[in-house]
């Protein structure tokens, strides 16, 4: 179920749009925050509030890469490997994350601390390679810098 705060937030979001359906994307973000990932229960909750049939909501949700459809680690490392990042060594960093933290692309570290998501371009090409940890940008990455960064995320 949605928390009361989330329900209230959703009501406010709903007012930004001419109909309830348009609030689906923000509602799914909220549900992801509330449930940790978009579980069947999360979809049912959104469907119940917005009146969007749950199969349709799930179709929409699974279309977008940033909605998660399995439980995630406490922190999500979103590393870009698209061309600008790739030619500046992003693949090496993928290996590093695997070797150092046991993080496979799309997987979660055994301690549940991190999940690794390989991203398409995140708009930090001039400062490549780059990643987002949760909502925070980190650029000009090196192995050493990644170590420092991840230290801050428990």
């Amino acid at each position, binding site marked *: 179920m949605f928390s009361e705060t989330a329900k209230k937030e959703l009501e406010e979001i709903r007012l930004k749009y001419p109909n309830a359906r348009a609030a689906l994307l923000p509602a799914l973000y909220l549900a992801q925050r509330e449930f940790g990932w978009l579980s069947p229960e999360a979809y049912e909750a959104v469907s119940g509030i917005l009146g969007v049939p749950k199969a349709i909501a799930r179709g*929409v949700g699974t279309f977008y890469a940033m909605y998660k459809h399995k439980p995630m680690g406490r922190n999500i490392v979103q590393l870009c490997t698209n*061309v600008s990042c790739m030619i500046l060594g992003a693949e090496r960093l993928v290996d590093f994350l695997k070797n150092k933290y046991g993080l496979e692309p799309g997987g979660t570290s055994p301690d549940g601390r991190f999940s690794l998501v390989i991203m398409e371009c*995140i708009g930090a*090409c001039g400062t490549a390679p780059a990643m987002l940890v949760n909502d925070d940008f980190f650029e000009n990455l090196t192995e050493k810098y990644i170590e420092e960064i991840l230290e801050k995320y428990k």
Partner: protein
Amino acid sequence: MEKILLKNIDNPNSADIAEYMKAGGYQSLPKALGMQPKEIIEEVKKAGLRGRGGAGFPVAMKWTFASADPKFPKYLLCNADEGEPGTFKDRPILEKNPHLLIEGMAISGFALSAEYGYIYLRGEYPAAKDILNKAIAQAYEKGFLGDNVAGKGFKFHLAVHQGAGAYICGEETALIESLEGDKGQPRIKPPFPVNVGAFAKPTVVNNVETLSNLPYLIGIGGEAYAKIGSPDCPGPKIYCVSGHVEKPGVYELPMGTNLRDIIYTHCGGIKGGKKLKAVIPGGISTPILPPDKIDCAMDFVNMPKHGSMLGSGAVIVMDESVCLVKVCYRALKFFEHESCGKCTPCREGTGWLRKVLGRIENGQGMEGDIDLLQSIAGNMLGKTFCPLGDGAASVVQNFIKHFRPEFEAHIKNKACSTG
């Protein structure tokens, strides 16, 4: 050239409304509200402003269509779904100069008689979301948004709509679908968004950079604006340069700046003095250019004459260490990941191309694979629902066109010779 779009961004508080106003912001909006909407469109037409999202469509023409449609309310959507790989030109505006965009949207909204605006912001820009929301709140507070903008009786409401990771939403009808709470799959055209857009109402979708031109354009007038940059498509342009250059980053320069100058003059040349191997001039979907083809003016009109496109102005520079088969493979991985799945050639073709490229890259390429790639790409090109599939096909075709020997070597040697 003075900085127009990236003005003041080195000021750490540039996103604050007070700083923006101190630097002369929100002066064009009252001026615009004192004009007739038609007059604004006329100025935009005189300015020759073209959409900065990639297609370079004349802005005034789009606006005229939407404004002529009798249906209300009208919507103004800002395309901030900057997803073309290599592109990071809108992000500094969104994060450092949000009020420029907001002022531009209010002016544009007035010109279109639009009551509602949304900034469709890509999900990958969480920081920009907070900055924009804060800036919008400030603008409401100061009366630059709301039921009575700047006390001139104009109603304009603005909100941020966050995408959730889908490149295709940069296509304007897909963006509208996504705004309406659906999958970002492109719509059948016609009807065009200017007539039947968001919530079935007349809708204009413009890029962040495009809309951010409006305050300056209205400030100095269309004729004066038209004197900047290329006569064919005037104005300032943000070029974003990544890859193997000494000084990658965003460069606001006159439209039509020479590609070689951008790389060698503004960006300090190839990193570590290495040899240039290839340049993708306008984001990954635009045709790749070999080093001998980079003497071209970077604008919408000239680039096609040189076998490529301006696209988003995202210049990706690659030195001699780069394996282009691998880059091509990575690009197709991207297109496969981002294909929306609606049409057959793109849904099936991007994956097939990626698989064939993958086997070449992995040293398992077979004789005939290059022909197969070209055949698959040819079967996609011009047959897909939207330009995404064309982009994927043309990447393969152009990589092979300019760098065929590298592909052949991969197949023959069952390995990469570059490293």
